[in-house]
């Protein structure tokens, strides 16, 4: 019996029982759609999260005050003042941290910007002229402040594109050269610090879930002394020349800072050094694990669907006992009968798989549209692997769960089967 005639036969049988066929494949369809959707969402979420991390720039080391909170998150609201300007200066020593191409000291706070009768609440970053060397961005107009402006504590400010839009776009005024006032929300500097706008940064979206276009940048000294009235740092970024040197740079940073802070015992370390690459790796490990977990949940529904197939195939074999007897009488071998039922089961699950893929891809696409509409930097990703995998798994399910009924059918004694009522 040739393969084509088995296919014709099986298709005819399935078409003759349309309602049952549809119900039978439902379980597989849901399972496959679930797998596709979850893998697609996982990939989308991963690209979103990794995008947030890698936008900071690669080969970046982040130093924060306070001990690494391995046992839990740092206490919110607790201000740690252990990282200071002299630490950043010490790290700039090429002899001690040779592979650092830029050392960027930062402080940040929330502030209100006032220009004319407009006020905007935003976040400001007190930073230095190394900022453009550590973080990737381009200027829309003007320039970032120079080393001289930075160390001299010039009253200048660089603003994000959205701030520029909100303040100046309706009046058509060129932001460059305008003087805005920046008022800290915690420090009482009545009236605010007047700062001259010298640059606008091009739109760059969000990273680490902070909209970068809503930030303003002031020289570190201005931020610390005039706006916040503090002397400590909140973050130091260090750019490493090459990824291969990042481990040794982390070690160098540790030793410099321990010396700066007079720490002899590692237990007393009061700073945290992280690599963004590590964070990216960690995050993708987490999303991978999460995806795997969800996919295995969806896979369970595939197994349940497979049991449905098993059930229906058992019923089908029982129902068609006489037919099986007849087929054997007119010359069907055991193999031919087994293949017929096996093919029927695989075709059922294969069909369920294809319908599941269509639904899964469609739903994933709709979700991605929704996420983009909600303002997330979401990518619609359906990996070919997930499609191959789910079709493969569904056909395999058909074979696995169809095998027992098919063998049962093949083993039927034609004499008994022909007598079956």
């Amino acid at each position: 019996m040739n393969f084509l005639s088995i296919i014709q036969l099986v298709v005819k049988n399935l078409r003759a029982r349309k309602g049952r066929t549809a119900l039978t494949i439902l379980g597989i369809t849901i399972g496959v759609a679930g797998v596709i959707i979850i893998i697609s969402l996982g990939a989308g979420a991963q690209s979103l999260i990794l995008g947030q991390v890698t936008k900071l720039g690669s080969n970046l080391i982040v130093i924060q005050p306070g001990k690494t909170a391995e046992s839990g998150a740092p206490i919110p609201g607790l201000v740690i003042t252990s990282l200071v300007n002299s630490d950043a200066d010490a790290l700039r020593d090429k002899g001690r941290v040779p592979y650092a191409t830029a050392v960027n000291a930062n402080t940040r706070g929330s502030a209100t910007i006032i220009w004319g009768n407009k006020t905007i609440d935003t976040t400001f970053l007190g930073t230095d002229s190394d900022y453009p060397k550590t973080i990737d961005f381009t200027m829309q107009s003007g320039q970032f402040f120079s080393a001289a402006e930075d160390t001299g504590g010039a009253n200048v400010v660089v603003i994000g594109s959205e701030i520029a839009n909100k303040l100046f776009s309706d009046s058509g005024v060129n932001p460059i050269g305008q003087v805005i006032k920046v008022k800290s929300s915690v420090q009482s500097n009545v009236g605010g610090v007047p700062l001259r706008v010298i640059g606008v940064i091009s739109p760059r979206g969000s990273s680490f879930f902070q909209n970068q276009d809503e930030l303003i940048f002031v020289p570190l000294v201005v931020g610390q002394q005039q706006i916040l009235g503090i002397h400590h740092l909140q973050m130091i970024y260090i750019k490493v020349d090459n990824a291969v040197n990042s481990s040794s740079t982390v070690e160098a940073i540790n030793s410099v800072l321990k010396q700066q802070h007079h720490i002899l015992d590692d237990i007393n370390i009061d700073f945290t050094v992280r690599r963004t690459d590590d964070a990216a790796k960690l995050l993708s490990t987490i999303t991978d694990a999460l995806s795997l977990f969800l996919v295995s949940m969806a896979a369970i529904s595939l197994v349940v669907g497979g049991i449905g197939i098993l059930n229906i195939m058992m019923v089908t074999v029982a129902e068609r006992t006489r037919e099986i007897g007849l087929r054997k009488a007119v010359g069907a071998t055991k193999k031919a009968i087994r293949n017929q039922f096996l093919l029927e089961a695989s075709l059922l699950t294969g069909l369920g798989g294809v319908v599941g893929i269509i639904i899964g891809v469609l739903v994933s696409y709709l979700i991605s549209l929704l996420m983009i509409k909600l303002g997330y930097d979401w990518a619609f990703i359906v990996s070919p692997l997930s499609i191959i995998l789910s079709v493969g798994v569904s056909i395999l399910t058909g074979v696995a769960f169809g095998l027992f009924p098919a063998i049962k059918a093949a083993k039927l004694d034609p004499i008994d089967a022909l007598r079956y009522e």
Partner: protein
Amino acid sequence: MNLINIKDLRKDYITGDVVTSVLKGVNFKIDEGEFVAIMGPSGSGKSTLMHILSFLDRPTSGLYEFKGENINKFDDDYLAELRNREIGFVFQSFNLLTRTTVLDNVKLPLVYSKKTNHDELAKKSLEAVGLSHRLNYYTNQISGGEKQRVAIARALVCDPAVIFADEPTGNLDSKSGNTVMFLLQQLNDQGRTIILVTHETDTANHAKRIIRIKDGDILSDEPVLHRTIADADKDLIK
């Protein structure tokens, strides 16, 4: 040459410690072109005998030669092929596939054969039983007599050496039964070997030879002296 040659054919069924002998050493020969009726009451062993003769079952002991070959040496797959090639079945309850057309029913054995011109052969076979006008009817749309004629067409389609008809008129009215017997006699006249299994003397008298069995033994094996010749129904048979 003998088509069928059986010697001391035995069939025992073992249930637990109880051995039931259904055939107790049966001997006969059937030549090509014969029309033989195997007769006997229910439980006589005639069905078991037919199953063995048609390769659906194997004897416990004894010799069965078909076309000079000992069939005991063949495996199940080869017996299936042999059934496909050499045997045509006509059953009491027709055993047609439901939700399937007349033509597709007749094509069924061809699916398991090496032949390629399925449509042509099936149509030719249906023409021989006078059902060319029913090709695309579903089996639930035709009468009982027509169903049995479809079954005969199906039995013929692979051009077998022998047709086994197991109570072929059992589920039919006398007129339809007569048509079926007419067709079987016509096929025999054309040279086809027919083996008819029945418990009705009237039906058996259509054959040329009757083998009577009872309790697993042959009671008699003799030619039919006053053979019934079925006459054609002019409306049904062209």
